[in-house]
């Protein structure tokens, strides 16, 4: 086969060398990077500022000592009751909102008939609830749970209130995760003679775990940082003991931070900053756990 040489005219018009970078592409890329840097800068400056301010008090006193409202005792003050209170409340919140939210999401996605009007109303309601201000949940908790059910200002009241607060987030993120499971998996399972429940339990839910885990932990991260609803539920009284049951009084880290900031002296503020660093640390660990779980389950797929 003979090769013909390309005429010079044609060769000149076909230039494959890199052109000058198109300005629009470059500008867009730089704009995206700028946005990322700004967000990152805010976060980093917050953490750095907090650490800088709370540095003198970032030591074991934080978790070995109880809070105080007296300036004379500030050197031996910590936030132990708040730490344990937070752990108790978050554990109880998770125990309430996770099973309920996941079950509700499974029902809405797999079992409910979307064409029925009441199911669509339900869906609309849940999405609206996700946007309700948290103080409203506080009032709800005060009126209905603390006073109405007579549960008082206890760990369980806080847990129920916070669970209600974050339930829409759990439901919505679990629904998204379930929706992301390809339908071909369900069809393959049905074709083998599996029932709906078997398909849901053995195929859909395991495949949805990354999304569910991420959503759940984000929901709990939000719950752990809520101060407004708990202000109305008795967490701001000076609590100098750790909770010893679901029916005991409690306080949480965000509330203690608030109390410390309210005090006039600078030493209290330092302690507040230290507690803020602790709280940020806990939230960071929880989010890392979410990412870890998600990655671990995604590698399987």
């Amino acid at each position, binding site marked *: 086969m003979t090769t013909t040489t390309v005429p010079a005219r044609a060769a000149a018009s076909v230039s494959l060398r890199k052109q000058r970078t198109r300005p629009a592409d470059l500008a867009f890329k730089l704009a995206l990077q700028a946005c990322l840097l700004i967000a990152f800068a805010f976060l980093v400056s917050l953490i750095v500022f907090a650490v800088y301010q709370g540095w003198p008090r970032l030591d074991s006193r934080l978790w070995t000592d109880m809070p105080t409202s007296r300036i004379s005792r500030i050197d031996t003050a910590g936030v132990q009751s708040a730490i344990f209170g937070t752990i108790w409340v978050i554990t109880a919140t998770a125990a309430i909102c996770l099973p309920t939210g996941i079950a509700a999401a499974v029902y809405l996605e797999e079992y409910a008939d979307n*064409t029925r009007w009441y199911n669509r109303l339900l869906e609309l309601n849940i999405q609206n609830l996700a946007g309700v201000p948290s103080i409203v949940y506080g009032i709800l908790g005060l009126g209905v749970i603390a006073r109405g059910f007579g549960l008082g200002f206890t760990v369980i009241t806080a847990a129920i209130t916070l669970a209600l607060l974050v339930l829409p987030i759990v439901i919505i993120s679990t629904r998204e995760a379930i929706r992301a499971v*390809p339908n*071909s*998996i369900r*069809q*393959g*399972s*049905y*074709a*083998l*003679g*599996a*029932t709906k429940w*078997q398909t849901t339990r*053995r*195929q859909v839910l*395991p*495949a949805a775990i990354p999304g569910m885990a991420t959503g759940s932990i984000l929901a709990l991260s939000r719950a752990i940082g809520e101060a407004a609803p708990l202000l109305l539920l008795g967490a701001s009284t000076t609590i100098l003991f750790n909770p010893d049951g679901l029916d005991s009084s409690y306080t949480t880290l965000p509330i203690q931070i608030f109390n410390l900031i309210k005090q006039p002296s600078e030493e209290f503020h330092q302690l507040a900053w230290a507690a803020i660093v602790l709280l940020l640390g806990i939230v960071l660990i929880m989010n890392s756990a979410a990412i870890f779980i998600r990655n671990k389950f995604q590698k*399987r*797929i």
Partner: protein
Amino acid sequence: MANAPINPTDVGTPPVEQPVNKVTIGDVSDRREPPAEIDAVIEVEDVSVYYGAYEAVRGVNLQIGYNEITALIGPSGCGKSTVLRCFNRMNDLVVGARVKGRITYHGNDLYRADIDPIEVRRRIGMVFQKPNPFPKSIYDNIAYGPRVNGLKTKNMDDLVEQALTRAALWDEVKDKLKESALALSGGQQQRLCIARTIAVQPEVILMDEPCSALDPIATARIEDLMHELARDFTIIIVTHNMQQAARVSDRTAFFTAEVDDKGERHGRLVEFDRTSQIFTNPNDKRTEDYITGRFG
């Protein structure tokens, strides 16, 4: 009819008729010709399938023979997959799907009110067009069917090995049973899906265009597999590929799509006969046109 040379002196000779370009069946000498009388496992009597008010396919009359391979062929949109999905009640999963007429399996009406679709699907399995292995290990993929069917066995390992061997996949995966099924190639995944289906030991296997997403070599392997499987299972295959139907099946049903005066397409069964008949001497002109490639 042979091409006769035209004698220039014979002015009145009529023009030579060109031979019809028939599809060659190929070398199927090892495949015996099915008996004229069908030993029916599934009988389809005057069935139409509706999606809501829309009639997707009408006038289906078929018998599926025991241990035979029956092919459903025809152009797109003529209801072949719809009919296939009726056999294992997968159309139940489509909102608004309705079946009129009778489909019987060993004499039992599949759509009777007291029939459990789960039980139907345990006896009539399905392989889909696009391979859909579960996001689990190869072992768990095969074991899933027996497990959900409540088969308690200490010999799950043997069952898995048997299924994979029958699907001609064992040698390729025996060292990596615990690895993800999604790491396999397309052809391997489809054979895995076939192994998964036969692990449940159904009587009938439905295959909805099982090779359309695969390359020719993988396709050929699966066609060989079908011949093997037909010894123990009854197979119904939907295929767009006429040559595949000719190579593989004992009987063929040809569907077509008709457009009514409103412009809607409705599928209907045109002809159902032994494959050798359909491809050499079809009764209906529409069948002949499709076979010879004049349309579709």
